């Protein structure tokens, strides 16, 4: 109970506090300290759930079960490490004149606001509040995408706002339909949008309404996941915003949007008694994997390339949840976790690499390993990990997804294999000369933050070799919940 309160109160109050604090030297440290406190609160909540099982709080408005508990911890953890990374990153940006005092003030307070919306979306039991939090997440990050005020970043932010706004409006229509269906069963009380209540009566929800509701919800939240063909905002927002924001968009926002979809899928599955919802997710997922893989090879901007890689991986996870069943769901949850860790580590390394080279164009970034071996190795190892090389966690989850696909949906396997192969060739051939090869890159004025990179990669490696028993138990239980 108290754990919920502390978890949500820290970032909620942290935002205005950092705004009042303004442009002080201590602001980045305060931001990091608040993020650490949030992470500690999430660890506390996790401990409570480990010892006592799923809990609800405040008239059941908030709840934590096996499905969201590890996502809460993951979100708070990546939020914390990203705040560590952003300290030296933003200091360097400021010295280059790209960031100014007022912009940093906006950045820090909006960072906390964004963390609040993510944690609210994860812990709320109310499908309406989930929608509100997802929309608020867009609002919190849109001014951060345009923070450099360049023509390209303004365009990216406008696109982000309008496309996600339109997408999320579809999700609101879906939520209204969901409420319409629920009200017939649960009555017009405030409880009719609570997921735990809906889950109990899901078999009684009217199938005709639920199928239409799920279509709208999938399209709406799918826009935020970056599913093709709704993905247009994603590469632009990742490439033009500051790198810490790219890291949290990829590592957190996409995960939380996908989490919203799978919560809805559980309800739709229960109401429909057919594979309609799963088939739609498989279709969107497969399309995203294939299209993103082919777009990967055409990119010149490094952050854009890894943004397309995020679309590819999110498509893969959506496909896995679409297949359903204990193994595919397990693999999907594992993949969400390791993708989030590894992709944010890559963005940290890429951010410093781009600062060193003074450009995000891959042909102008060369020989990182000579000037700063740690950034170079971080990027190289991260790239190998995200491409699914053993022994990293991505390999384990991709292997599980592929073998399940072979067994249950053999027709999809060639597409998946082709896409993974194309992605490997495209990304590796770009990153290899960036890391090795001749160089003219200058060292940075400040020490880059590389601890987060290697901590994330270490965790990604650990999850490939050994999954702690309680985590495995959660994954299994959540997989069972998802059906």
């Amino acid at each position: 109970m108290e754990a919920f309160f502390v978890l949500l109160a820290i970032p909620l109050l942290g935002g205005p506090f950092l705004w009042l604090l303004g442009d002080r030297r201590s602001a980045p440290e305060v931001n990091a300290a608040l993020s650490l406190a949030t992470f500690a609160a999430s660890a506390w909540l996790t401990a409570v759930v480990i010892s006592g099982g799923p809990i609800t709080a405040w008239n059941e408005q908030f709840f934590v079960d096996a499905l969201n508990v590890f996502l809460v911890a993951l979100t708070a953890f990546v939020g914390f490490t990203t705040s560590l990374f952003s300290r030296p990153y933003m200091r360097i940006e400021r010295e280059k004149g790209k960031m100014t005092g007022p912009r940093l003030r906006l950045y820090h307070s909006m960072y906390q606001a964004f963390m609040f919306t993510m944690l609210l979306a994860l812990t709320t039991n109310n499908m309406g509040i989930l929608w509100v939090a997802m929309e608020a997440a867009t609002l919190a990050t849109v001014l951060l995408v345009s923070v450099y005020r360049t023509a390209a970043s303004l365009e990216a932010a406008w696109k982000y706002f309008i496309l996600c706004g339109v997408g999320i409006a579809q999700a609101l229509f879906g939520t209204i339909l969901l409420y319409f269906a629920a009200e017939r069963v649960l009555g017009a009380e405030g409880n009719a949008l609570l997921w735990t209540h809906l889950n109990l009566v899901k078999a009684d929800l009217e199938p005709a309404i639920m199928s239409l509701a799920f279509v709208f919800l999938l399209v709406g939240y799918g826009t935020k996941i970056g599913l093709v063909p709704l993905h247009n905002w994603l590469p632009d927002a990742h490439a033009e915003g500051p790198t810490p924001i790219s890291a949290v968009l990829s590592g957190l926002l996409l995960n939380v949007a996908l989490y919203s979809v799978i919560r809805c899928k559980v309800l739709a599955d229960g109401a429909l008694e057919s594979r309609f919802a799963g088939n739609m997710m498989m279709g969107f997922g497969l399309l995203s994997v294939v299209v993103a893989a082919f777009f990967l090879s055409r990119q010149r901007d490094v952050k854009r390339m890894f943004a397309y890689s995020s679309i590819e991986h999110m498509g893969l996870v959506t496909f896995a949840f679409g297949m359903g069943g204990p193994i595919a769901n397990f693999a999907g949850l594992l993949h969400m976790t390791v993708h989030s860790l590894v992709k944010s580590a890559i963005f940290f390394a890429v951010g410093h690499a781009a600062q060193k080279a003074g450009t995000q164009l891959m042909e102008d970034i060369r020989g990182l390993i000579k000037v700063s071996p740690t950034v170079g190795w971080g990027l190289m190892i991260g790239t190998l990990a995200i491409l699914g090389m053993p022994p990293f966690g991505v390999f384990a989850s991709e292997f599980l997804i592929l073998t399940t696909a072979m067994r249950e949906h053999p027709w999809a396997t060639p597409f998946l294999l082709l896409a993974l192969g194309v992605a490997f060739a495209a990304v590796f051939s770009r990153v290899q000369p960036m890391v090795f090869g001749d160089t003219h890159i200058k060292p940075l004025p400040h020490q880059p933050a590389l601890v987060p990179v290697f901590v994330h990669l270490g965790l990604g490696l650990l999850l490939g070799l050994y999954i702690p028993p309680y985590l495995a138990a959660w994954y299994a239980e959540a997989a069972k919940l998802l059906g």
Partner: protein
Amino acid sequence: MSPLTGQILNLFASVLLLIAFAMLAQRRIVTLINLFAIQGLALVGSTVTVAWATGQRHLYYSAGITLVLKVVILPFILHRLIRRLNVKWDIETLINIPTMMLVGIVLVVFAFNLALPISQFSQSIARGTLGIALACVLMSFLMMITRSKAVPQVIGFLAMENGLFFAATSATYGMPMVVELGIALDVLVGMIILGVFMFQIREQFDSLDIHHLEKLKED
């Protein structure tokens, strides 16, 4: 619900739809804002009608929020914005009105067909309202796609929210209060951020034409 309230609700619904068509065809920004305010008023009317017919007390509150937010505050912000941005008398030249009207009609037919299997579950209200709400949403969507200036795009965005709100009140007697408050807050904050954003765009490009924002494309 008595036949009379059903008829009144239908009347408000048709006003909403009519305004959606008018917005689709309107070239002047300042008139668009006024249309948006009138649409908000129709929304208040329909919400009060539903509240009165069903005795749902919280619908009066949400009608009050709509009145304050969509009839007073948002149009006020928008008027102020276009005055400060000096785009008050801007006229959009690129839209082809007859084609837009035809596409709009097609959308209405499509929306009614989509809503047909669902409207039959509606217990008490006039059947067509869910279809009309969906049609309003789709037409605002069309407006956002076809407009090339920033302010009309934003008005399309807000009009879409009106359509969604109408769907919520007509199909379900309104969402739970906490959700409605959250949505209202999101819309308000979104509007403020968009306002800030438009100044940034104009500072950068000396115009609010979205055609400047088409550089980021795949090669």
